[in-house]
């Protein structure tokens, strides 16, 4: 019994002190999650910022109050702004910025809300863009010649002309500024269209001409080649015929040299054979053979 009572007291003691500890803890502890900052305000005036994540302490409610700020990065796109490049060309550009709260105290004092930051950034960026792009030609942004392009330089100029001001005046840290879009004013697009059309026509004409020229080159080359081949063939034929004639002559010559007299005789007989054809009329004397044989009988 006594032991049970003691146990009861002990348990009560534990429960009571735990509850008290919890109340004190929740009144004084500030849990700052990653990506947040706690702004500690004493009687409504920001006194310090707990930027590191973890457990922080403050005085209980009526004295200190903590408000949590979102420190995540945010993307802000400016409006499309018409501006003039150094070579006096009208362009419409849009930039974006990746920003975060860099100095919570300054931010809270200068801006207060996040929407406020964006309108401040818009003005800052638009001015910077007009100033920076006014110092570069359009070819620094779009060009097929890599030596002309200066996008990195333009972006770092934008950065250097905004980052410090943003941090000092608004407590905003700028991580990145980029040109998101480059376009042309509506009234200039017509001219670009005309130029593009002319360029297309020129290309089409060039392709046609090139095609024809190439085709006729291929054809004439082929014809030339064929003629060369045919000439070579004719030459070869002549050579073969010549060789054959020589060989034939030699064969006959070798044979006929053995008996030129017989050759002359057989040759004249052959001539006779050749001369007397189907429409030859022979006139023979009756005293020549074989007719003479008939006469003598």
């Amino acid at each position: 019994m006594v032991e049970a009572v003691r146990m009861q007291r002990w348990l009560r003691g534990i429960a009571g002190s735990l509850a008290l500890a919890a109340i004190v803890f929740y009144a004084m502890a500030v849990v700052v999650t990653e990506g947040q900052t706690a702004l500690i305000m004493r009687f409504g005036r920001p006194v310090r910022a707990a930027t590191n994540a973890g457990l922080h302490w403050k005085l209980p409610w009526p004295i200190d109050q903590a408000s949590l700020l979102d420190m995540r990065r945010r993307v802000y796109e400016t409006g499309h702004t018409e501006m003039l490049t150094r070579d006096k060309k009208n362009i419409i550009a849009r930039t974006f910025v990746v920003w975060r709260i860099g100095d919570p105290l300054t931010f809270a004092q200068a801006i207060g809300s996040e929407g406020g930051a964006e309108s401040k950034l818009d003005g800052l960026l638009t001015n910077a863009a007009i100033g920076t792009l006014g110092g570069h030609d359009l070819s620094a942004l779009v060009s097929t010649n890599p030596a002309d392009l200066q996008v990195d330089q333009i972006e770092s100029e934008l950065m250097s002309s905004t980052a410090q001001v943003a941090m000092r005046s608004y407590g905003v840290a700028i991580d990145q500024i980029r040109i998101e879009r480059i376009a042309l004013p509506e009234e200039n697009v017509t001219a670009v269209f005309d130029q593009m059309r002319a360029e297309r026509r020129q290309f089409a004409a060039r392709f046609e001409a090139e095609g024809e020229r190439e085709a006729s080159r291929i054809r004439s080359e082929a014809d030339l080649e064929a003629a060369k081949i045919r000439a070579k063939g004719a030459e070869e034929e002549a050579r073969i015929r010549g060789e054959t004639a020589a060989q034939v002559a030699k064969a006959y010559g070798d044979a006929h040299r053995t008996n030129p007299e017989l050759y002359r005789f057989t040759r004249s007989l052959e001539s006779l054979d050749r001369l007397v054809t189907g429409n030859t009329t022979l006139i023979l004397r009756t005293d020549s053979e074989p007719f003479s044989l008939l006469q003598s009988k």
Partner: protein
Amino acid sequence: MRKKGPPSEIGRLAAPIAHLLDAAWQRMHWWVGLMALLYLLSGITIIKSDEVAVVLRWGKLVGATPALQAHGPGLMFALPRPVDRIVRVQVKRVREISVDTLTAGAGGPDEDDSSPSSESTLNPLTQGYALTGDQNIVHLAMVARYRVRDPAEWAFYGAKSEDALRVEVTAAMVRSLGEMGVDRVLSDGRKALIATATKRAQAGLDAAHAGLELSSLELTSLSPPTALAPNFDAVQSAFIEAETAKKLAQAYAEGTIPQAQAGADLTAQQARAAGISELAAAHGAAGAFLALDKEYRANAAVVRERLYRDAVERAIVGAATVRWVPPPMGGSYKGFRITLGSGDRASRAGSSSADEDEE
């Protein structure tokens, strides 16, 4: 606890339950202990196979480096709730957004009035487009696929994924297009364009600490303005025609040259064949002559006579007509006239003896 007074009927019936409750109350510290234990174990969880978890202790990330912060799939030990908080991130899932900031008729808030102006001009606010390096205009639509690379950065410090991707991809594409000519962009440069834009977008995402990895960037459409489509098509068809003309010429060349070669080969071959047979005939004739010569040397008069008679006979048989005339009186013909078959061409045989029967 309250065991005073005599046990009533109800009290007697309820005694076992009261006894049980009493016993449970007696072991209260066990119950408390058990609950405390369960509470302490409540931080243990299972991380699924496609997830990674990071632990926040009093809001602060546990682990110094991203590699130490991220816990892979499996059983995970953490402290219970107010102390530790577990944040799960699906790192393997590939997400997709379509980026249509540079798409025709999808650049701004009021798209309705895009159609009437589309013929002669473009409103940069309502119609998305980009300039190429040679200051041509193209419309394009993109799809970006991405996944979380650095869970802690993505979960706590990065900008919203969709925002960051849209602007980074657009900026990267605008810049990459600004370096290339329109003809390269619309033909063989597309792959290079995507590659440089992807690289640039990733660099931008890294600079913006988005904690994202761009796994692929796809161009779902890429075209010149509709008003200029016929002009681009004309170039395309001119190109195809030129290619066709070249192909036809090549086909002609490929036909002509072998044909000429075959012709040349044929003539040479025919000459060769003719030569062979001519030569063979010559050899045959020469052989025959030699054989005849052999015979002639043995018996010249007989051979000569035979040959002569054979020839005369052949001549007589082969001739169309044979006329026989008497021998001339006194060695010459006087007024003898021969009329040839054709009649109109007559030749007179003079005083000389007829030549036709000459030996």
